[in-house]
């Protein structure tokens, strides 16, 4: 592979940031259908319960979704039959403080801070999370391969969350 091709396949921080912001915007607008093809086929969407864990397979998570579960989740949230998601809370989130933690051919790993404000039924709540991403380039398009949302209070009590983090 030539150096020129390598340069083409690498993902820059700028590209990654634009991608993550576009994803955040999609989720706040409940635009879940186009969110699904943002993922690689083996992509994994994880929201752990234990703050320090890396072994998501053998521990309890809030969510640990493969492609099938992501599809089922989106179907559920958009169905109109989930009491907690119809009507949905309004959310506004920002993702920032990006740190690149790894890079490879057609791949970038980042961690970032997310602050999400939720409003529903006269009540405003705040969720804070450290989020790690692995983005890969597949046939020219950037895709989500790993997304781990570590809520600051993940091992404490939460509340019913009727939207995607």
């Amino acid at each position: 592979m030539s150096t020129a091709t390598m340069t083409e396949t690498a993902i820059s921080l700028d590209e990654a940031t634009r991608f993550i912001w576009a994803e955040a915007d999609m989720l706040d607008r409940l635009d879940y259908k186009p969110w699904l093809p943002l993922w690689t086929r083996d992509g994994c969407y994880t929201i752990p319960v234990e703050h320090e864990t890396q072994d998501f397979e053998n521990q309890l998570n809030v969510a640990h979704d493969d492609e099938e579960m992501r599809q089922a989740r989106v179907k559920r949230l958009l169905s109109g039959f989930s009491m907690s998601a119809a009507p949905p809370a309004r959310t506004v989130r920002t993702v920032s403080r990006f740190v690149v933690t790894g890079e490879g051919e057609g791949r970038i790993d980042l961690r970032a801070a997310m602050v999400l404000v939720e409003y529903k039924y006269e009540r405003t709540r705040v969720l804070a999370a450290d989020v790690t991403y692995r983005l890969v380039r597949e046939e020219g398009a950037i895709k989500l391969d790993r997304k781990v949302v570590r809520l600051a209070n993940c091992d404490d009590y939460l509340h019913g969350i009727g939207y995607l983090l």
Partner: protein
Amino acid sequence: MSSTDYAALVKQDRVHTALYKDAAIFEEEMERIFKNTWVWVGHESELPGANTFKKSFVGNQPVIVTRDKAGEIRTLLNRCRHRAASVCEKKKGKQSVFVCPYHGWSYDIDGGLRKVPYADGYPEGLDREEFGLIKLRTEVYQGMIFATFKEDIEPLVEFLGPARKWMDLFMKQGAGFGVKVLGEHKFRFPGNWKIQLENTTDAYHFPIVHKTFLDSLDAETENIFDVIGSGGWVEDLGHGHSVMVMIPDLIDLDENLDAPIPDRFAELAEELRAEGHDEDAVRKIVRAVGGTGFNLNLFPNVACSMAFFRVLRPVGVAETEIQHVAIGMGDARTTPSPAGNRARLRLHEHFQGPMGFGTPDDAEGWERVQRGARAGDDLWIMLNRGSEAPEGRPQPGHNAGDASSEVGMRAAYQQWKRMMTA
């Protein structure tokens, strides 16, 4: 002491909405119910060895549940005897001493006062015997640990009574390896604790509230979850306890072990064989993976619900914390099947937890009850649903109704009334 006429607020087939929203009633409940009965504080597997502990609550009082070197389990109030600072703020762990961070009083794992810094500052002397952490009476059945403030209460096994049979059946989901806690989801909802207490043996809500969960299952599994039309029932087990049988075929996990392995578990069965389990063990684990076919509600704060423990903690008159404790196979020393436990974790995540396919909708429903209860001053919660139980199923002499009946709620509220008027 309140002058409320509690008896008048609970009729045979309905209860008054004041029970959800009157702060004075809540305070009385903490005294008359939560300080006068056996309250669930944990599972033995959460104390896996000598000098291990976990934090918990009895009603709204913080406690530490500990296991000492000799294996004895105790429940200790989590407050220093000197100036009341909490002596433990870790969720769980292993240590032999709790040191109060404020003035350095230290306590052994059994609650005994070990050392007091500058003890000569008490010229009259300090009787250490007198100032240990306060112990609650603690007893265990089937690994479930209960504690009580009421020293002269009946033994735990008597309090559980006919519920014990169902606890024995529930623990069969350990597939012969015992049951252990794998993790827990915790969430709060802005509503009264009794709204959740009602929910565990309420099959009537299931197809409505959990439509999106049912839609996410394969056809075979969806059929199994036809909880109202499958010949199940709800039974009053005394002392406010009740059982709701949803899937009669899954009452006893030791039965029907010769049945073919369902397609959806074929992959798991392969993994189990690869782990080295013989065909009998594979069938046993596969049959146990989804849990039992019933929910057992133990008044006032814990349920054995299909494949998990559901624990409620009253926080305030309109604030309740729920733990959904994921359980798997294996005691403290063994991990019989990593694949089996992984399957259980994924099933737990599918329904339970703040983002499960079931829990957020339950929580929303409970919150709606609390919000709606504000409307009107003299309105009642109806608990009058209930047709005949299927022939021959319940224990003779027990009060029972079909799976969608409200027998379980009536049982719980009659116990509430007995305790509040005692």
